[in-house]
């Protein structure tokens, strides 16, 4: 009799490829999931699809020629990467930009940070199945792209900074547009909060999901908003102030639990803090030259090395440059924040539901080409 009936189903593990084309993976990322029913037992992110060899390229071009590469790693906050690279080379070569250039750079970098966070906001909520917020934030983000396009000539991969200044001066129209944008963005916060922050479906999807606590963050080197959501007020702009960030009054928002909801709140609050920095920078912006005239295009730093860390939209980023005294860097290494942020998913995704995995992935805000380099 027994052979006529199907054998009782054994408990079976199931492998699922999340990506590499899944729209919520932000770049080309594949996560190999081992599932037991709907629960994830193991998650192994497989990366490298976008590896272009930026670090190798750095070894056979001059410092200035590497500038466009810098903005193509994290293409959502390219100007901040540009800014950081510029500061690293200036520190190595002993170049001091004029005051006006420093303020221009800070304003542009913070605008870029807001545009990056706005894009995260839209895509994160789209991952969760909400389409409307995406339209709101892209509408706002478009303003920033227009402002930056006007001064730098590009919408996404800016190569605006130069050693000893910026490529072009800003005019009164830029300042007016920026002030108008900040006013507009502030008038939009109530809409954002009514639409999303107070939305009960959203809260249920993200509260107590994907907890990254202090200890986990430290073991995996998680930085940026993801670390601050766990309650550690660690921001390079405050801890090791570079450029003129020590002249501004702003706060480092933190969360308490480190769940996806905390990460969401921290990022929204960070946009408001960036607005405060921009306003103060515009008020204090001095006149004078926007670029040091005497810097040669082929910068030739003395022998030695520099490790320069700064805060990009996704966390602590650093350039490690080694110079042998020639116009070509001997080694260019980039410490990217998304690397640690993604790596910790191998631990965070364990024993969660597949649906939550999408929410967690969105809340961590990774940019894969930055990891692949």
């Amino acid at each position, binding site marked *: 009799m027994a052979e006529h009936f199907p054998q009782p189903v054994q408990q079976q593990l199931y492998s699922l490829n999340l990506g590499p084309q899944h729209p919520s993976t932000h770049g080309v990322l594949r996560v190999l999931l081992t599932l037991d029913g709907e629960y994830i037992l193991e998650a192994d992110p497989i*990366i*490298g699809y976008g*590896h272009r*060899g930026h*670090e*190798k390229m750095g*070894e*056979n071009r001059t410092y200035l020629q590497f500038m466009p590469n810098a903005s193509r790693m994290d293409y959502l906050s390219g100007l901040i990467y540009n800014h950081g690279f510029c500061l690293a080379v200036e*520190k190595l070569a002993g170049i001091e930009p004029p005051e006006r250039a420093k303020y221009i750079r800070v304003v542009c970098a913070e605008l870029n940070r807001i545009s990056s966070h706005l894009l995260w906001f839209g895509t994160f909520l789209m991952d969760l199945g909400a389409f409307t917020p995406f339209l709101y934030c892209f509408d706002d983000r478009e303003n920033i792209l227009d402002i930056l396009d006007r001064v730098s000539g590009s919408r996404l991969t800016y190569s605006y900074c130069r050693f000893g200044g910026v490529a072009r001066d800003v005019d009164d129209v830029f300042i007016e547009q920026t002030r108008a944008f900040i006013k507009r963005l502030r008038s939009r916060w109530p809409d954002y909060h009514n639409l999303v922050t107070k939305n009960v479906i959203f809260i249920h999807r993200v509260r107590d999901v994907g907890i990254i606590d202090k200890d986990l963050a*430290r*073991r*995996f*080197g998680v930085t940026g908003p993801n670390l601050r959501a766990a309650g*550690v007020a*660690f921001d390079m702009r405050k*801890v*090791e102030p570079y450029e003129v960030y020590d002249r501004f009054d702003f706060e480092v928002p933190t969360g308490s639990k480190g769940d996806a909801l905390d990460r969401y709140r921290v990022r929204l609050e960070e946009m408001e803090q960036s607005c405060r920095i921009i306003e103060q920078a515009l008020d204090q912006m001095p006149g004078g030259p926007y670029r040091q005239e005497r810097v040669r295009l082929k910068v030739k730093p003395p*022998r*030695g*090395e*520099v*490790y*320069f*860390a700064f805060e990009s939209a996704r966390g*602590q980023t*650093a350039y*490690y440059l*080694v*110079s*042998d005294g*020639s116009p*070509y860097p*001997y*080694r260019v*290494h980039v*410490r990217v924040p998304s*690397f*640690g942020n993604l*790596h910790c998913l191998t*631990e965070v995704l364990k024993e969660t539901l597949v649906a939550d995995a999408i929410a967690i992935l969105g809340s961590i805000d990774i940019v894969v080409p930055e990891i*692949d*380099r």
Partner: protein
Amino acid sequence: MAAKDDALRRIQELLGPGAITADPDFRAGVSHSVACPKESLVAVMEIFNECGFYLESLTGLDFQDTLELVYHMNAYEPRARTAVRVLCPHDGEVPSVTGVFASALWQEREAWEFFGVRFSGHPDLRRLLLPEDADFYPLRKDFGTVHAYRKREEVYG
């Protein structure tokens, strides 16, 4: 400041006074450099872990005479960054620190595939960014076009 001072005191006890170089002006972006022999690497990392540091960056440098691994350690306080430098021959092996810092699991995979440094004791030494069948070490100076290939003292001498 407590974490950094505590860690440096214990490392000095372990390695002797000559191993640590200070950079009080923070000119190269690190406050102290530790020249660490391979054998003591895991012990040094354990000290850093107990003092609340995290492994910020791990990368290599290729010189004609040697490979060098640089571990940048940082704590959540101002100017705590410390570089741990380990020299290793081109065909050499370095003990893995994955037992101390989980972030080394990926960072060591990256250093291995790009520089050809074997990490003894790493549980899962697969390629991370390169194709699975890559049989070259791209960040070595004998690969591709590079401007210069120097001895270590030509850069740091």
